């Protein structure tokens, strides 16, 4: 108890609170700008966080995480374009409310629902993390291997339309993870005689390249005219009453719990949670026909769910060291850089760091309330920024951010290379999340595989003679079979895509 209080007191310093609020503000702006994803926002903050004390860094990143999840609703409501995939369901009723002259009400409902969902997500994290960490203490190398294999299968299968492309993407990530030193024998691998690759590929180069720069390149495909266009937004002068907010309490609680539990599952994030919550809210509603016409229920449900995902996604990250989504994959990198190794031993060796994450997540909800409430009129103006100006500015930050970790231009060159790779892979339908998550867990996956085989004398039966490991690996195979069946069914349907020239094409 004294450690909790001590950690809490550590958060009440000017530097930490400033970082928290700044993180929330940057997160809202990043999440609010279409084309700038939460993962891109967090990736760009990552190099800054490396120079900050641990508590300050955690406050900054957690604030940005919560802020970005809410931020997507700003553009979803004002310009009918979700700033993040997690806000896609918010457009359905949010924009309609804006057209009906209720933009301010919709934004405030989104904000308060996000805060409520954020609290619920934190409660789920507090309830699940410690018990799960106790179970995972019994995990040995075979169990870890099985769990990571299941995570990769889930992420590879869900990230795109093709499990095969997801697996290819994941294997590319695993190959990148092998660059540097072999974790068992210490031999050099794929360094090409370059001293800069001796420690492996710089994490920032991959994150910023694949998320930020690849997105900048994708946006360039839209053409100069489109990028220079200024989106028109609506005014935000109307208010939300306490009675209107309170009328949504059961909607927000149920959606929040659903969002948090969905967030716990690796590979399934805010975009799934928001639609599941929206559909469930419509099903429970006494007036389901009103959904889609501009009602606050349709804003409260997805927003509560997508912010609750933050807490849920931190459960596998903290207890197992396995990121639940791409944002937590970046957070894993940040924590490791600060000497905090996520996993079950974290709850024994460094419980103080766990409390820091809990408290940061809780305080970030408060920060979100403050910054969101004050900043809505400002954020609604920022959403109007032309991409033709914004994207080049972001690229300079990408260069500076990547350079800053080792003061090495080689890392920035790698970032450009990964940006190009990410763009090419995206264009050909290969999803990026499996690659990033495979890169993050690659060394651990390899180590657990080789340790298991060394323990068993090269006998792969070890993975099937231990019950937990067997269940996890069979689960991965069953899931893969399910995804193949799903893809076969979907393969018979025509899909309309936009080709390189910007024209619609049926495939």
């Amino acid at each position, binding site marked *: 108890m004294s450690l909790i209080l001590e950690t809490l007191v550590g958060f009440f310093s000017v530097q930490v609170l400033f970082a928290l609020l700044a993180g929330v503000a940057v997160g809202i702006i990043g999440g609010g700008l279409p084309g700038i994803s939460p993962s891109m926002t967090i990736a760009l903050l990552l190099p*800054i966080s490396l*120079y900050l004390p641990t508590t300050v860094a955690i406050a900054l990143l957690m604030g940005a995480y919560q802020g970005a999840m809410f931020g997507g609703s700003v553009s979803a409501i004002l310009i009918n374009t979700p700033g993040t995939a997690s806000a896609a369901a918010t457009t359905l009723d949010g924009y309609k409310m804006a057209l009906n002259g209720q933009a301010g009400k919709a934004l405030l409902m989104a904000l308060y629902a996000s805060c409520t969902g954020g609290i619920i997500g934190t409660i789920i994290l507090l309830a699940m993390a410690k018990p799960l960490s106790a179970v995972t203490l019994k995990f040995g190398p075979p169990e870890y291997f099985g769990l990571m294999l299941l995570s990769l299968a889930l992420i590879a299968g869900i990230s795109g339309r093709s499990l*095969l*492309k997801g*697996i*290819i993407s994941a*294997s*590319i990530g*695993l*190959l990148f993870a*092998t660059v540097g030193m*072999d974790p*068992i*024998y210490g*031999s*050099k*691998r*794929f*360094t090409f005689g370059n001293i800069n690759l001796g420690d492996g590929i710089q994490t920032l180069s991959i994150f910023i390249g694949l998320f930020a720069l690849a997105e900048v*390149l994708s946006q*360039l*495909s839209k*053409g*100069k*005219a489109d*990028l*220079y266009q200024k989106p028109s937004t609506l005014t935000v002068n109307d208010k939300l009453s306490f009675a209107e907010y309170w009328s949504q309490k059961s909607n927000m609680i149920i959606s929040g719990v659903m969002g948090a539990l969905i967030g716990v599952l690796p590979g399934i994030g805010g975009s799934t949670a928001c639609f599941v919550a929206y559909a469930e809210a419509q099903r429970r509603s006494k007036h389901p026909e009103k959904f889609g016409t501009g009602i606050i229920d349709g804003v409260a449900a997805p927003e509560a769910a997508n912010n609750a995902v933050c807490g849920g996604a931190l459960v596998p990250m903290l207890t197992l060291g396995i990121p639940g989504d791409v944002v937590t994959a970046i957070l894993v990198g940040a924590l490791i850089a600060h000497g905090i190794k996520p996993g079950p031993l974290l709850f024994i060796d460094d419980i103080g760091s766990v409390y820091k994450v809990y408290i940061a997540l809780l305080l970030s909800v408060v920060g979100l309330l403050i910054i969101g409430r004050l900043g809505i009129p400002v954020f609604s103006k920022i959403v109007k920024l*032309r*991409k*033709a*100006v914004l*994207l*080049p*500015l972001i*690229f*300079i*930050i990408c*260069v*500076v951010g990547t*350079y*800053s970790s080792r*003061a090495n*231009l080689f890392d920035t060159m790698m970032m*450009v290379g990964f940006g*190009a790779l990410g763009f090419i892979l995206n264009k*050909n*339908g*290969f999803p990026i999340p499996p690659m990033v998550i495979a890169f993050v867990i690659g060394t651990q996956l*390899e180590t657990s*595989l*080789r340790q298991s*085989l*060394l323990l068993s004398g*090269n006998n792969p039966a070890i993975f099937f003679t231990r019950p937990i490991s067997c269940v996890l690996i069979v689960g991965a195979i069953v899931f893969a079979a399910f995804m193949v069946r799903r893809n076969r069914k979907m393969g018979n349907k025509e899909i309309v*895509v936009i*080709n*390189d*020239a910007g024209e619609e*094409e049926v*495939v």
Partner: protein
Amino acid sequence: MKKVYSDLRSGILLFVISLLMYFVLIPAQISVKAGKNLAADFFPKLTVIVFGLCGLLLAVTSAYDLYRRREQAAKERAQGLWKTNYKAFLPHAIFLVSAIVYLMLMQYLGFVLSSIPFLIFLLWHFGSPSWGKNLVIAAVYVPIVYLIFSYGFRIRFPMGPLGF
């Protein structure tokens, strides 16, 4: 059908890359002492096998799909619908080449002197038409970024002839 053809090309390319990696790159880049159990090349080779097999499977399934719908495929090919519009990627190529040149020049000119002209060019390239406005944006933004990162976070940027 164009997407299926693209998958076929991707699958073949990935399979060829996996063969090159397995037989050329891995032996060249990973030295393995004789007698070592589960040596340093074990996991890369395993991953490349998975990668190659998936690439081959992608190529085979795409080829089969094209064969099944060969009449439609032939028609679309005759109409030239499968041609990739490489001109559409010219802006991206210009951006990437200019970014590489910018980074190479940064070590000689320093961060500020290289970033301001590059940002002016980039703003124009992304569609901001006014050179004057771009100059103002670059002249304000780059020094601010430099000051924040060099004094706030103690980052040592490449020094140019002017010392910054």
